[in-house]
């Protein structure tokens, strides 16, 4: 009988001495498991990784070493505890990977470059691409190309990919997964960059879940306040997309219409500066209408699942979202309302998280 102990070595991953990111296919399940933990927590230790994954200390050591060599993980300074050996924290290296997120909105397209911990390094707002009749999506191609060409060299070398967030209106109610897949492979074959496409509201929810206030949350109702109000149900970290395309015209478009009627400037609503002028009573009236709709959505969902948290994400000023959340909490006891912190464009940042989750995390 052959003795397998002395067969040629078959490493989990051949120690990789090349720079840049490895191909998708060689990243093992256990490696993704470890990266998922790191992407979900600020910093952790090998012991914690072992406990939470069930992997042995030696297996964790092998995985962490390859991730360190690849530059995805940075080793922290040993922390002396009062009892027991010091712990050495591990965290993602912010410079380890970059990603571009593009969100096509009602009027504008947002482009962000984020680093591996979700910090926005660049942000630009450009006009929406104009559809070309002769092609499916040459407009996206030009936009993505433009975004990638603007990247600093280091980010281009360590680019995990491009995430594209599309609103339901742009996809014209196509069967989404199939449409996204076709779009994805066409862009990839033309530009040679990994591209991931997702619905924009789902992307915003993913953004808050990966980089924002929803990081520690498992179950909540997610609201996106854009031109309209949209909702997503998140259970056990899973964002349920469903087939619901329902949105409510109580969003920022509603406020715009009101401002219009009063003859006030609507420009500040869309410029993403994070500041709105004092709209006075008008804002209060609009907020109340919005909160009424949020309460209706919440109580319909609450009939089926026990949800005690809602998250409100928006490019509207944080103070406005905070205000809405406090009012919501006052009107709906025992429910916690949290204003999102992903700025300047939750959809674009969420889209940028997509290449990270697809390439580095477990499903």
């Amino acid at each position: 009988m052959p003795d397998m102990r002395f067969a040629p070595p078959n490493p989990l991953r051949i120690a990789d001495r090349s720079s840049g990111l490895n191909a998708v296919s060689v990243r093992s399940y256990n490696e993704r498991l470890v990266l998922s933990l790191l992407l979900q927590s600020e910093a952790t230790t090998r012991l914690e990784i072992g406990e939470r994954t069930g992997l042995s200390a030696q297996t964790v050591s092998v995985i962490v070493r390859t991730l360190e060599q690849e530059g995805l993980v940075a080793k922290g300074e040993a922390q002396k505890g009062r009892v027991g050996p010091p712990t050495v924290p591990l965290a993602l290296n912010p410079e380890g990977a970059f990603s571009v997120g593009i969100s096509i909105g009602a009027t504008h397209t947002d482009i962000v470059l984020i680093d591996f911990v979700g910090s926005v390094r660049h942000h630009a707002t450009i006009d929406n691409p104009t559809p070309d009749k002769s092609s499916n999506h040459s407009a996206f191609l030009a936009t993505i190309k433009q975004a990638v060409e603007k990247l600093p060299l280091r980010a281009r070398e360590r680019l995990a990919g491009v995430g594209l967030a599309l609103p339901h209106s742009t996809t014209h109610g196509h069967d989404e997964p199939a449409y996204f897949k076709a779009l994805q492979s066409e862009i990839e074959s033309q530009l040679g960059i990994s591209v991931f496409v997702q619905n924009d509201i789902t992307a915003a929810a993913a953004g808050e879940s990966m980089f924002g206030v929803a990081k520690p949350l498992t179950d909540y109702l997610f609201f996106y306040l854009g031109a309209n109000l949209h909702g997503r149900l998140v259970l056990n970290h899973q964002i349920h997309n469903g087939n619901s395309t329902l949105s409510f015209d109580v969003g920022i478009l509603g406020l715009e219409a009101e401002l219009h009627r009063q003859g006030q400037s609507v420009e500040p609503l869309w410029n993403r500066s994070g500041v709105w002028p004092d709209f006075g009573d008008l804002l209060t009236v609009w907020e109340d209408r919005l909160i009424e709709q949020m309460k209706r959505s919440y109580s319909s969902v609450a009939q089926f699942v026990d949800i005690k948290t809602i998250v409100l994400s928006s490019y509207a000023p944080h103070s406005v979202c905070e205000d809405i959340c406090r009012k919501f909490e006052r009107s709906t006891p025992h429910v916690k309302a949290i204003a999102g912190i992903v700025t300047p464009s939750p959809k674009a940042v969420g889209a940028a998280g997509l290449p990270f989750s697809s390439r580095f995390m477990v499903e």
Partner: protein
Amino acid sequence: MRTVLCYGDSNTYGQIPGGTPLERYPFDRRWSGVLQRELGNAWHIIEEGLSGRTTVRDDPIEGALKNGRTYLRPCMMSHAPLDLIIIMLGTNDLKVRFNQPASEVAMGIGCLVHDIKELAAGPRGHVPEILIVAPPPMHDDIKEWEPIFKGAPSKSRELALQFEIIADSLEVHFFDAATVASCDPADGFHINGEAHQALGIALAREAEAIGWN
């Protein structure tokens, strides 16, 4: 109390570069001693360095007693239970008399790992944590050792990668000593006091970073 076995050759024994085999750094200046100082009293460091020790080979000249494989088992038994075994070997396997490439030396390291796993001399019959340390590469100028180590310097530069491949496939810890220390030019393959310091400190950090329960 955690017990660590440091299993190595003359560079664990602490032979002074360029000196005779009898000249040795004192314990507190050898890497095992530095490791003890760094880790503190909650750790018990056992030093097992033998000049000329190979991974798995009987030395036809120096004698079968230099074979690291045959001595490892009784050594583990005498010191069990062991929490961590650090192995830094491989240089002596590169002697001309063995005529082995770096990959075969790594296979020898693999044998030792299998033996450690089989004996399971860790706490409560578990397998101890195993840390493979690749020795720093030799210099090209190895002085009067040239005939004994002919061709070894270039092979020694491949040890780290070959050891890491073995460590990865057998899922054990690995450290490349060349990242913190180098050999002394006095003889080209022994490490000096400064290197012992750096190595002891680095290995203490590695030992601490293991996810101990």
